[in-house]
């Protein structure tokens, strides 16, 4: 007999105007593994951050074993026996593995940390998860990602949890590692621990879960016992939303045969595996799949921001070297609209004018001096083209709304007249009106023969905007959808690397 261990009722959380969780309900029992499913942005991460005391909900109540609790900070959750392994690792890179594992409550003797005892604890925890190859004295900084993830799991186990939350905790692990972790999880279940498991890998959920809960758009959709629904039904529950037509019509002109961008056998570290594809001038190609399957790395690699990339890239038939954004821009007219506009796209305290002209500043000057008049003309042109709403071009860009900031980032690269435009989730966190303008702009650029590669975490965008959608899974290209085959069902299925629908057979090209 298992007992209700944790319960949350009516929990809501908003970030600015964005609703991350709405009246959410969740409960889990001791001795059971509970899988939480949903698309990107469905609210899963917010849900567990509330459970872990990282986020404070706007409203709603939490109960632990029948008594109400308040979790203001991670330490409160830890005290209540709620331990989480997060997607973003919470290890301290400069400290050793043993230091990290025993971090929260190190063994003490005479008030000081007992390093010998600590080491024993670390070795035992590592052995439990079968990671005996990790030296407890090694600094975490020196370990590869998969080993860090094992340390993270060992750290959670060493805290002796009542409720263990794993958020994509196995995303970087090899199948042998995953098997070892699963054995431990099953043993913990046998001891009455409640386990909340979030994973995009449906096969893992099939193997592990006792219960499943599906979230969509921050709302609880359904909770059911595992194996009572098939993969197809689950995918439908995860989608279930209408697609409004906010997208410009696709171009009907026949495409040129000569590719604008040709990528052959691109690989990088463990994140990109032999990726090959082409984009023709005038084509908008979407990049889809679950978060963190190598899409960002692919864009960064093409932009020359990664070191040690192998494979060939040709732009307009000429091979290019991937030596950095400056080189990529000059050689091939490649522009990247980055993911994090505040950190990677804008100099927030500087003026709109300065920000718009940065990427093209070399072209605007003579003898190393910036030609102010030419700059003003070019900037005015871009501001008009994008209808950036700004009271004064000399105002700091930080004062603009998110949508207008994003337009400035895009405008900056339009100044260089790029031939190949890479976009990393360009509409995240901006309002619908601006989104529509950006969609129209992308289509216009494509009509002007630019080649566009658009990574988006929003499936509706991929469906509405793109002529073709490439799906990445675990760093490899697993599907290419075209025309009528671009629908949510196919995208979600391929993103989870499932073959539930073969009505539109596709082959990676």
């Amino acid at each position, binding site marked *: 007999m298992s007992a209700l261990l944790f319960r949350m009722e009516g929990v809501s959380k908003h970030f600015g105007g964005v609703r991350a969780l709405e009246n959410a309900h969740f409960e889990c029992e001791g001795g059971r593994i509970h899988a939480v499913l949903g698309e990107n942005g469905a609210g899963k991460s917010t849900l567990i951050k509330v459970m872990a005391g990282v986020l404070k909900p706007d409203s709603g109540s939490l109960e632990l074993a029948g008594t109400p609790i308040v979790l203001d900070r991670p330490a409160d959750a830890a005290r209540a026996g709620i331990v989480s392994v997060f997607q973003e690792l919470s290890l301290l*890179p*400069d400290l050793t593995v043993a230091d990290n594992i025993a971090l929260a409550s190190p063994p003490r003797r005479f008030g000081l940390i007992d390093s010998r005892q600590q080491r024993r604890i670390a070795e035992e925890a590592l052995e439990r998860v*079968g990671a005996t190859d990790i030296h407890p004295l090694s*600094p975490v900084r020196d370990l590869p990602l998969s080993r860090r993830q094992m340390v993270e799991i060992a750290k959670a186990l060493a805290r002796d949890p009542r409720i263990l939350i794993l958020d994509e905790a196995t995303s970087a692990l090899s199948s042998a590692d995953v098997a070892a972790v699963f054995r431990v999880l099953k043993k913990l279940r046998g001891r009455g621990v409640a386990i909340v498991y979030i994973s995009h890998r449906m096969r893992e959920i099939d193997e592990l879960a006792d219960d499943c809960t599906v979230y969509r758009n921050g709302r609880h959709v359904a909770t059911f016992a595992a194996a009572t629904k098939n993969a197809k039904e689950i995918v439908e529950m995860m989608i279930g939303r209408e697609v409004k037509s906010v997208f410009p019509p696709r171009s009907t002109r026949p495409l040129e045969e000569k590719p604008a961008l040709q990528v052959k056998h691109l690989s990088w*570290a463990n994140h990109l595996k032999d990726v090959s594809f082409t984009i023709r001038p005038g084509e908008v190609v979407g990049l889809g799949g679950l978060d963190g399957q190598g899409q960002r790395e692919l864009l960064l690699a093409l932009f020359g921001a990664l070191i040690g990339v192998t494979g060939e890239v040709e732009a307009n038939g000429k091979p290019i070297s991937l030596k950095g954004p400056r080189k990529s821009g000059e050689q091939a007219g490649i522009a990247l609209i980055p993911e994090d506009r505040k950190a*990677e796209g804008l100099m927030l305290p500087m003026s709109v004018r300065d920000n718009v002209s940065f990427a093209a500043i070399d072209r605007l000057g003579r003898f190393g001096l910036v030609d102010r008049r030419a700059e003003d003309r070019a900037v005015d042109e871009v501001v008009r083209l994008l209808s950036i709403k700004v009271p004064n071009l000399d105002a700091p860009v930080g004062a603009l709304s998110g949508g207008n900031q994003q337009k400035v980032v895009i405008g900056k690269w339009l100044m260089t007249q790029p031939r190949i435009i890479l976009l990393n989730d360009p509409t995240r966190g901006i309002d619908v009106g601006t989104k529509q303008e950006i969609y129209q702009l992308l289509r216009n650029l494509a009509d002007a023969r630019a080649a566009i590669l658009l990574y988006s975490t929003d499936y509706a965008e991929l469906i509405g905007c793109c002529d073709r959608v490439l799906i990445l899974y675990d760093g490899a290209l697993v599907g290419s959808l075209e025309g009528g085959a671009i629908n949510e069902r196919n995208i979600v299925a391929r993103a989870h690397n499932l073959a539930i629908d073969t009505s539109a057979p596709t082959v990676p090209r």
Partner: protein
Amino acid sequence: MIEPSAQPKATTAPSPPRRPDWTYHFAAQRGAWIALLIFAAMFTLFACEHPAGFSHNVINTAANKGALLALVAMAQTFPVLTSGLDLSVGMVFVLTNCVASTLVSGSPWRVAVGVSAVLGTGLACGALNGAVVVWGRLQPIIATLATGSLFYGAALWLRPSPGGTVDDGLAEALTGSLPGGIPCSIVLLAALVFFVWLPYRHSVLGRAAYAVGSSRQAAFMSGLPVARAQFATYVLSGFFSAVGGLLLTGLTLSGEANAMLGGSYNLSSVAAVVVGGTSLFGGSGGAVGSIFGAFVLRTIGDLLFVLDLDPLWQPLFLGVVLLFSVGLSSLRLLRIKNRLDIYR
């Protein structure tokens, strides 16, 4: 209790032979070892070239000069470990010198009270710094620059013109040497390492300081006492600066509100910390390295003297040593795979 799994090894690749423990201990202290080696080489050269050779006197003078900077550098190490900075260490050093020259004299009982007052002044200055940085949320550089000015003002008020005195017995005990020729100042440094630094290093508070410097967010997410750990580093910084001020009083036998001296110790302390292998980004290094770093910097001047070089060369020589040691610590940039990481 879960029994250790007797399963086959979980890794797909065969694991390389296990590195012995000491290599990790060594790697963690590499900066300190490098500083020690540089110092040993420089000091040997110095002693060989010195007309008087390895005499007790030569060693004692060198030790006292080095120990002064070493104490201030140790003080600087604590905030730097949390990726902070304390630009008031030099001024606390000067202020406590003035306090000591006023209070540490007379009957043994009054001397004891005086010493407590000196150390208390350091702790109070550190607590003010910590409060401003941690709860006032000001940037450490500018916050401590401001409080440093404050401390200097207090020193000037206390001692508008140089003077004062200090108990002779205490001065001798701090700056003299033991019968075997071991300088007392070195014994003082060793005592501070064993009774303050090492226990701190192995306390939860010390561990938390490294954690904060390594990744503030991850430290918070792991439920560590982030604010308390940061506060403690500034308090300890004040304490070590005060010990330095006491030693300075023992050497000069008077007090002086000398702004130049404070300023130069501020910057030299940062340099010594870096030469000693502590990263300005926080999270790695330690106070022992800073001691060697301080001795390296102090030996440069002496070396130029015995080699009969113009003292004008000293800044240039200092710069070369600094660049060399900082260069060693940024070798890791060669291993980076994502160019964006270089700019993080």
